[in-house]
């Protein structure tokens, strides 16, 4: 009997019931959520269409740049999918009560695993697709896909592309739990992070292009050289490369190459699934036993955790505030899902910094230096937005079912909100400034650009923390223990979207006077752009006031009025 279909059928019944029977408040939140996602979808479509349209008109290298962006975009999506599938699998495949319940039923273990895997795939992938689909649509519109081209792209390119990282992520987590029978989960995750870093370093060194060390004069080739230096995007044995190539083929007269790259994607998907299911058949039940064993095994004593004296929490902080803060830090350190994803994101940051090493240091053209520094600022902003949603957004939800303890204590809920805000902000801002400082040094930025970067990143940290804490209070998921899954929920996805839009707007507003200033300093054909600076300042003030005040206001209101 096919139990997978049976399980999925009741999944759908549950989902439909959720939409059918929701109360007015939930209905409004869901409608707002869908509206924001739809706006983002069409916004992204508009943005990428505009970008590709612009690039397609640049002679000689426009199409090349477009393909590079596609490849780079899908590499990022691929990595995001591996991470999000792995993190969500901790909850879906191992910690969920549903999995334990299904193990008590007379189901073939392979079917049980497939049902849970499909669940995991859906939860981890849908949010990322909100970004992937508009990129393909925009590319198709600009490159003139026929109707069957879109159909082909979604069925035979995008679908296998999303399944491959899902298999990788799930398999990695099975091995982590399998090894955790002999090793501590912390050791296993650290070893995997080390292996991943090593693999990436080797990968970057193999894929490195020789053009990086050449002297290039300041023109378009410099930018192309910079993009070319992100050599990780053009490794020909990776699925993102096949996606880029297959889409490119769809734009012209499809030849044998289209089928070659599609075959690469489809065969890799089938092979990944077959391998994963074989691995699961053999090891899933055993690794699940290990995960249960770790939860059940009596520990000698939990490792005592107290902040080092030089980081001691100041006495003037209210006692309840200090108490919650210490509890949060303890839980963070003892929660493998939290620091596992922190380690993975740290590895990604290192990749980015390693890639900056390839930036042509002898480029003296101020114009391009400004452009590159803004690209770096934007990228740092995107990383920060991702980090905020991954780590700050789930904080209130992670109080979980134990919220009654705080709700019934004399500690005002508003103070809990501010504790979440400040504890997240301090760590987050520190990390953001370090990231910005290192990347600026590697790009050779000094003087006023460095100061501008410092203050912009600080302001951005406040805004992104406000967005994540505030939205986390509006869309709490007290029933979920896994922070990765909380971040992938609808509320988390909406927060990601709003955060990314905020970063885009901030970059656009700041770029306008910076561009004019560059032109002014380079050839002096225009006046000092004082008007642009003032206008930009006002717009930034408005944007940040909105990004900081609105989420805090609605978050505080929502959490204060909630019944526990």
């Amino acid at each position: 009997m096919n139990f997978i279909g049976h399980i999925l059928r009741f999944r759908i019944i549950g989902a439909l019931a959720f939409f059918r029977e929701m109360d007015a408040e939930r209905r409004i939140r869901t409608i707002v959520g869908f509206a924001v996602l739809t706006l983002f979808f069409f916004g992204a479509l508009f943005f990428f269409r505009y970008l590709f349209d612009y690039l397609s008109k640049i002679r000689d290298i426009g199409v090349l740049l477009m393909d590079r962006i596609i490849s780079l975009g899908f590499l990022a999506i691929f990595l995001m999918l591996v991470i999000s599938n792995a993190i969500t699998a901790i909850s879906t495949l191992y910690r969920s009560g549903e999995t334990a319940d299904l193990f008590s039923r007379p189901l073939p273990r392979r079917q049980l695993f497939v049902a849970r895997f499909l669940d995991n795939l859906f939860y981890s992938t849908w949010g990322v697709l909100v970004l992937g689909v508009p990129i393909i649509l925009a590319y198709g519109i600009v490159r003139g896909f026929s109707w069957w081209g879109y159909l082909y792209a979604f069925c035979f390119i995008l679908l296998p592309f999303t399944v491959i990282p899902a298999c990788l992520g799930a398999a990695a987590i099975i091995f982590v739990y399998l090894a955790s029978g002999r090793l501590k989960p912390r050791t296993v995750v650290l070893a995997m992070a080390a292996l991943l870093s090593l693999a990436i370093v080797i990968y970057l060194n193999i894929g490195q292009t020789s053009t990086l060390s050449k002297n290039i004069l300041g023109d378009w080739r410099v930018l192309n050289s910079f993009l070319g230096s992100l050599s990780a995007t053009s490794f020909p044995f990776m699925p993102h490369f096949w996606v880029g190539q297959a889409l490119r083929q769809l734009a012209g007269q499809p030849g044998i190459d289209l089928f070659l790259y599609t075959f690469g994607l489809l065969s890799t998907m089938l092979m990944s699934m077959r391998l994963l299911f074989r691995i699961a058949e053999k090891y899933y039940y055993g690794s699940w036993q290990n995960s249960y064993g770790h939860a059940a095994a009596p520990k000698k004593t939990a490792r005592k955790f107290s902040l080092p004296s030089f980081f001691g929490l100041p006495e003037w902080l209210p006692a309840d505030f200090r108490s919650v803060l210490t509890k949060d830090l303890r839980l963070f350190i003892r929660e493998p899902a939290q620091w596992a994803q922190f380690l993975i994101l740290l590895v990604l940051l290192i990749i980015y910094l390693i890639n900056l090493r390839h930036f042509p240091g002898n480029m003296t053209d101020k114009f391009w230096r400004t452009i590159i520094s803004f690209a770096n600022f934007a990228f740092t902003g995107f990383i920060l937005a991702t980090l905020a949603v991954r780590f700050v957004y789930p904080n209130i939800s992670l109080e979980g079912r134990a919220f009654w303890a705080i709700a019934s204590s004399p500690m005002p809920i508003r103070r809990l909100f501010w504790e979440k805000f400040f504890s997240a902000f301090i760590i987050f801002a520190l990390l953001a400034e370090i990231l910005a400082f290192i990347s600026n040094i590697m790009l050779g930025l000094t003087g006023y650009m460095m100061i501008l970067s410092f203050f912009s990143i600080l302001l951005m940290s406040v805004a992104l923390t406000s967005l994540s804490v505030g939205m986390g209070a509006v869309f709490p998921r007290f029933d979920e223990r896994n922070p990765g899954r909380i971040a992938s929920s609808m509320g988390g996805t909406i927060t990601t979207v709003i955060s990314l839009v905020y970063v885009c707007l901030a970059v656009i507003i700041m770029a306008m006077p910076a561009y004019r200033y560059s032109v002014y300093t380079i050839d002096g054909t225009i006046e000092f752009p004082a008007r642009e600076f003032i206008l930009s300042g006002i717009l930034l003030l408005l944007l940040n006031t909105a990004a900081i005040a609105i989420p805090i206001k609605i978050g505080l209101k929502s959490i204060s009025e909630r019944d526990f």
Partner: protein
Amino acid sequence: MLKFIEVSKRFGRQAAVDNLSLEIGQGELFGFLGPNGAGKTTTIKMAAGILKPTSGRIEIDGIDIQNQPERAKMLIGYVPDSPYLYDRLTAREYLEFIGGLYGISNSQIKLRAEELFDLFGMDGWVDRRCEQYSHGMRQKVVFAAAMIHRPPTLVVDEPMVGLDPPSARIVKDILKEYAAAGNTVFISTHTLSIAEELCDRIGIINGGRLVAAGNLHELKAMANQSEANLESLFLKLINN
């Protein structure tokens, strides 16, 4: 019939269950007593096929649950101590779902579900979503789901948790009747009065080891306390 043959379960260096051998026959209601952390839930989870014994084997009507998990699980109904329910399904849909996992046809599920809803006195609730249920009502749904396929062996972890007195009475009567109909019922509890009232035989587990098993008279004889109640017997046996 449920049979534990030299079953041990270790978590790291700690033995949660140590060399347990026990046989519960047809028509018998067996109570598994023990203090917190004694190994009751681990034993029950092994019997339900969720946990794998480190050594030894468990048979349901002669079928080894590790070697033939699907066949053995068809013969068991399991009620966990903290049940998992799909909050967005109604009780009726939940039973349809669980019935499907045991390969029962829809028409049969519908008939059996109605019987069980009547039995547990759940009228008026069965078409509401589980997220609206009290703990007691959830417990009733899980009981009904465990009995949907008429299993010859029922394994129940802490059956009375969260039930109000009328519901507890219903569940007690159902368990007694189920055993009287020739089925095997294995319950774990640390509420001594429940074991005393319901069970034909009682096993006492402490620190993963079965320290005594038998009916109330046999336990009294073991503890040399012919006049004692179960509470003092229990305390004496686990302290020994």
